[in-house]
């Protein structure tokens, strides 16, 4: 294996100079490219090398890093809300009858937000630093709000399915009959 290594990379100069490079073909990773026909090098490397090599990426400053992390955290926080319209449409389409599909939908509608709420801290662990703790707290609050919103959609769904005991009829079985204090017997001929 070691003797093959210098051949693989870099690609021959004529390959990099091709005006119309051969199209990328996917291939099983286990099969090595024939010598001189490196597929990775064909399209990507020439331009990337041109851009990145002359100006290698410099490490961002801690402030910038915080900003970037915050931005990423906001994205994570708002992600549940982006799914909401989709969920709403699907729930509307699935109808209010008790079927396997709608039951699964409702189950997912509750499972996802609850799991999300339970793992709030894990979700923002990697974005949290000592300096941005205050702003991450806001993001977390937004995240919780979004999950609660998703949960509310689930609640709305089971309510429209009639599964919430919100009406008088749901408590009818616990209401008792009024007992009469007197007892009358009809004593009339058969």
């Amino acid at each position, binding site marked *: 294996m070691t003797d093959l290594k210098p051949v693989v990379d870099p690609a021959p100069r004529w390959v990099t100079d091709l005006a119309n490079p051969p199209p990328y073909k996917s291939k099983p990773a286990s099969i090595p490219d024939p010598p001189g026909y490196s597929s990775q090098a064909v399209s990507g490397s020439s331009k990337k090398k041109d851009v990145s090599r002359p100006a290698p990426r410099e490490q961002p400053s801690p402030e910038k890093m915080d900003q970037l992390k915050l931005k990423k955290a906001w994205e994570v926080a708002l992600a549940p809300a982006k799914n909401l319209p989709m969920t709403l449409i699907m729930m509307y389409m699935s109808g209010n009858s008790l079927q396997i599909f709608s039951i699964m939908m409702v189950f997912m509608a509750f499972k996802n937000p609850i799991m999300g709420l339970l793992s709030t801290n894990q979700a923002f662990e990697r974005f949290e630093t000592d300096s941005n703790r205050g702003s991450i707290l806001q993001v977390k609050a937004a995240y919780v709000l979004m999950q609660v919103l998703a949960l509310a959609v689930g609640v709305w769904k089971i309510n429209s399915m009639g599964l919430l005991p919100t009406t008088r009829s749901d408590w009818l079985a616990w209401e008792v*009959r009024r007992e009469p*204090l007197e007892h009358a017997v*009809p*004593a*009339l001929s058969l």
Partner: protein
Amino acid sequence: MHLPTQLSALLLVALPSAVRAVFQDEVGHIDYHYELLGLPQRETTFFHKPRRDDKASLLYTLSDVGVLGAVNPSSGAVLWRQLLNGTITDGGGFLRAGEGQNWLASAYGQSVHAWDAVNGRNKFWMDFAGEVKDLEVMEMTENNRKDILALFDENESTVLRRLSGNDGRVVWEYKETSGDVPLQVSTNVEKAFVISLRGSAGAYNIKVTILDALSGKREDELVLGTKADVHDKDDVILVGANSAAPIIAWTDDTRQQLRVSVLGQKTRQEFALSADTISVEIHAPHIVQSQPHFLVHSKTSTGHTAEVYHVDLRTNVITKAYQLPFTSGPGAFSTSSNGANVYFTRITDEELVIFSSISDTVLGRWPLKTTESRLVALHGVSEVVKKAGTDSYAVRSAAVTDTDEWILIRNGDVVWSRPEGLTGAVAATFVEIPESENLAKTLEQEAHSNPLEAYIHRVKRHLEDLQYLPTYLNNIPTRLMSSILGTEVSSHDVKLARDSFGFHKLVVLATRRGMIYVLDAGDHGKILASKRVFDLPKGQKWAIAGIKADDSTGIVTILGTNNDETIVKILPGTSFNIEVLSKGPEGSPATQSAALLNTVSGPRLFPVGSDGELQGLTSDILPNQVAVVRGSDRELKGVAIADGKQTVSWTFVLPKSQRIVDIAARPSHDAVASIGRVLGDRTVKYKYLNPNTLVVAAVDESTKIPSLVIYLLDTVSGQILASSKHEGVDPSKHIECAMAENWFTCTYFGQYRLRDGAQSLKGYQIVVSDLYETDKPNDRGVLGDAENFSSLGPIDAPGDVPLPSVVSQTFILSAPISALEVTQTRQGITSRQVLAYLPENHGIVGIPRMVLEPRRPVGRDPTAAEVEEGLIKYHPAIEIDPKSVHTHERDVIGVQKIIAAPAVVESTSLVFAYGIDVFGSRVAPSFLFDILGKGFNKVTLIGTVLAITAGVMILSPMVRRKQINALWGAPM
């Protein structure tokens, strides 16, 4: 949202087609039916050949409940039946058959009818103004046709009509306005005789009017005897029908002398009867060709005897031919003629003997072989056949026994017996088979001892029970097979015990003839026991004021209207004990009804006197009870009972122009599953569930067209809770009400106006009313969440009276219904059906409560919410769907009342109908949702399981081999 709505709407529309009251494989399994005629009457029962050239004859009868029918003498099966009056009657009526004719003539009340003897089809039906007093078929007429003579009593005048045997048209009519009491008619070839009583009650003379049979002109009139020697019209024993018995016979009221006169003669002959005679009967042949011989059967208190007389037609002299020996014990005689020969059959409690009318030599003698201990024949008819070429005879007799059975005895053997005594039933109740007392005691004992002892005791008991294990194991294969094949386990030697479904109940039935029957509703209505409780004199009926069954002890208490009380004890096992506590009935009816009051020791029946006072009140009656009794005609009274004393707490009096036609109360077992109705929008309409309510239907005849007023009464305060008026009601038709849960229904015949015009139509209608606490949903009315209520409690404002909100709707029925009853189930979860008898279709129909729904939307399609609630669009007409008729193809006649009782399984209600026929079935208004029906194919199920097991057993070695081979084989 739309699709399911339409789907369920479709389902609802499709539902009635799927609804079947009875599935075909359940016929005869869940239902039973006694096809009965009633007790045959002596004068209206005979053997007759339905076709002139037929050898076989049929047995015809017009019974004491008004059923005319034909029975196959060899099997006892009913060939056809006709209910003459449309309802149950108190005996009477006439039935005659012309010799060699294929029709029968009958008369009842004001009408004369003729029927085809083979199939029972009506030949003609003629209604007249007067009441029919007698009927005879003429021997022969000028045009070779047999005509009918019918004697009428029309407003004090005697009318004799000759009706054509072909179409019933009147050939001639003879009218006499002498004021005499018309009695009977007789005829010979040329003449017709009208026998009437002249004089006043207690001192009559017999008058014979002789008419020309051809023209109906009066020829002569004779008064027999000089002194008024006929006391009562019952003293005239016999007026011979035709020239085979051209006599008229009567006795004095002390039964000392028999006076006989030949028809058309003024002279009479007297024969002394034995001193202690209590009743006399005369048996004479009916067939014209027979010799004019007759038999006088005189009964004494200890036994009976008979004398045979001959009439000499030339000299008109009656001579005594011979006397039969006196036999102690009861006996019955019957006549049979074969050409000119006349035979008399004598049935005693030991043997059957036949004589010829000529001499007293015994032609045949057979000892009675009966399963019962003693057979007492009251009266009968017989047919004697001389065996060709030999000197021996064969005889078959159909006799009515003292246990109200109709039996056929052929040469001493009882061929069949029909339980005709089940007709004329006046009260019935379901009763549970009591649990074994020992078990109940043991369980109680275990409950009271300490846990360890109880446990040991229980283990011991179970060990003792092991002795029954071999029998149980032995029974398993038969039970399994019967369960798989759907056959039934024969239960002839199985102990009487409850079943786990609660279908095995008993029915105790009381008839107006004073008999009590115990039927097994779980075993095709088999008669388990019967007993005569009262020996009622002729014309008297047993009327019942109240009947009550105690399910835990198996004791049924029956209170009669004449101070009589009967107790039927059902003991676990197979024995019954029918006990009569106090004697009766005696005197005039003293009890109008019975009140079931709660006492310290459980509910007990108390008789209510004719004045509306409760009798025999004791101090252990629980307080705060009100008994509702009938006062006078238009009056209901509430009688409050406290400390053994009674006070009238309220009186409900109808206006003068109204009278009560029916009263309905909620059944004693009326389980209510939910106290409210959930509407489509999930709100609740609360039911008005006041057990102390009563529906009173009254007819108001003050206007030209009568109207029906329906009152809903509170029975504690006597207050009218609701009332409604239906104009244009016919009070002569059935008006009946039924009540259950929070609704009541009434049926009547009335007129209604069409929506689009002034046109008014008439028809049978049913009105159903729902009662709710208020008309607003989610509102429990003025009482709010109070836990109890009192109808007598004080109120603060006039609006605080808890009146129900009533929703009503009326439907038109395609057939009249009567005997309304609502199905009952254990918890009341199952929807209900209104069971009703169809008097014109001879069936019992179950109208689903879903159809009889007052909240059905009128004039528009139901909204989605209403569909969800199960409401269908209102349609004014309810067609009696043959599929909802529980009696399916059975012809059930004369049902007077239907009773229902819950089973252990919630889906099913047991139903029993009585009157003339007896019918019982099981009704599942919401289908059998808790047990497997007979349609469940156990064979397929077990077959599938076996096939799959076999498949697995075959395939598993194959698969295993393949897997092992795969492991050992070379990789490809």
